[in-house]
């Protein structure tokens, strides 16, 4: 009796689920991929993430900022041990960008970036970004994987979801049809095509591969301490299981007198 009521209550709580997930009555369900960082033992695939960084750096960085990271974060002193790049690679990546600074006379100059600098944004401010992008503001990508319902699956779906609009659909000016974007009209044109980048390790750079690698990179960028979190979690829960087991034994023993 009571159990039934309880079950009904839990069933009602399931109504909450679909609401908090994406409110997309029209968009199809997201394709679900297996990401290497998901799950209790999840960890970043650094090979893939490094390729993804190359995609970001060569393609996305032209419009999208990554301001929460410094170049040094990619290297050995980065959070969670970085992305696996060596210090020299990191310096080279940084030095390829220019940062505003002042000289000894106090005049504004630009200088090459160092590992201590945050990723140089493509536009100096929001107005410039909008002016260059048809009024739309390309969002910063530092947290994009955590800032969208569906997370990595959503970002992957957007990247691979560009299609021809269905017959009869009127597209807004400058808009592009995307299967998974709410409302189906996205201001960003398809950012990736086959061989947009040439991977240093020779992996074939299809759109799917580039998207997969890019999402792996962005997932790392959003939460570089994920692996430490998983490791600590496993130790903590194992410890708690042992401790709770002993406490249960203790409870039973102590209460044996009363029962």
């Amino acid at each position, binding site marked *: 009796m009571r159990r039934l009521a309880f079950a009904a209550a839990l069933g009602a709580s399931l109504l909450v689920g679909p609401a908090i997930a994406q409110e997309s009555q029209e968009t199809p369900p997201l394709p679900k991929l297996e990401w290497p960082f998901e799950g209790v033992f999840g960890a970043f695939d650094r090979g893939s993430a490094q390729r993804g960084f190359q995609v970001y750096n060569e393609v996305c960085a032209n419009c999208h900022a990554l301001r929460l990271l410094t170049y040094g974060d990619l290297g050995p002193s980065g959070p969670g041990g970085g992305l696996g790049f060596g210090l020299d690679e990191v310096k080279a990546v940084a030095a390829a960008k220019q940062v505003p600074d002042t000289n000894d006379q106090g005049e504004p100059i630009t200088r090459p970036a160092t590992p201590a600098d945050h990723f140089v944004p493509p536009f100096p401010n929001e107005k410039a970004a909008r002016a260059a992008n048809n009024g739309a503001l390309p969002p910063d990508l530092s947290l994009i994987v955590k800032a969208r319902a569906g997370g990595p699956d959503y970002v992957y779906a957007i990247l691979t979801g560009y299609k021809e609009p269905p017959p009869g659909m009127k597209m807004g000016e400058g808009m592009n049809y995307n299967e998974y974007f709410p409302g189906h009209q996205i201001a960003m044109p398809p950012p990736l095509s086959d061989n947009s980048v040439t991977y240093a390790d020779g992996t074939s750079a299809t759109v799917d591969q580039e998207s997969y690698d890019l999402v792996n990179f962005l997932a790392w960028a959003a939460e570089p301490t994920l692996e430490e979190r998983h490791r600590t979690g496993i130790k903590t829960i194992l*410890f708690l299981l042992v401790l709770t087991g*002993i406490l249960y034994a*203790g409870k039973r023993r102590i209460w044996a007198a009363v029962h």
Partner: protein
Amino acid sequence: MAESGHAQAVGSQEGGTRRDFLILTVSALGAVGAGALAVPFISSMQPARDTLAAGAPVDIDISHIQPGQQIVVLWRSRPIFITHRTEDELKTLQSPQDISQLRDPDSKALQQPEYAKNWHRSIKPEFLVLVGICTHLGCIPGFDPRPGGDLGPSWLGGYFCPCHGSRYDLAGRVFVGVPAPLNLPVPPYNFVSDTVVRIGENPPGSNFDLNSVEQL
């Protein structure tokens, strides 16, 4: 009656020692858990990754410093004096008149890396690198290289701290009879080229840590 009955029922079991074992195990595990829990909290107060990164070595171009001139740069939020000493100034460093005024002329106290433990307290004699914080109470001493003047006929040039009158010579060595107890510290530094000095990094073969000095 019934309550003490409980006590007897529980205590008089042969499981008395077993219960002690249980208490011991739980206490031990609990202590381990509590200790492990305290670590992240205490550790979070240590300098964060970005703070440590901001303390990385800085490269300074010294090619523009004229002889007799000093520049001040910041490293780890501390003022660093880089002084280009003249030949005459270097001569005073070994003169009896200078040495007789000093508390620790041979730099016996650990206030400098081993590669600066010499009569000029530096790698290259003509360039002096010091942490510009008075070893008395932390003011920044002023640079006063001209002999004589307000500081009297025996003043050969050096540093004068305005707060309480401590004096140091042109190698940062402290005078006798002033409040400051120790020579000005020398930070780790290295010449990466003839014109660029890197503050915060030792030359190859040395691993001097500034925190090892007697007093900053």
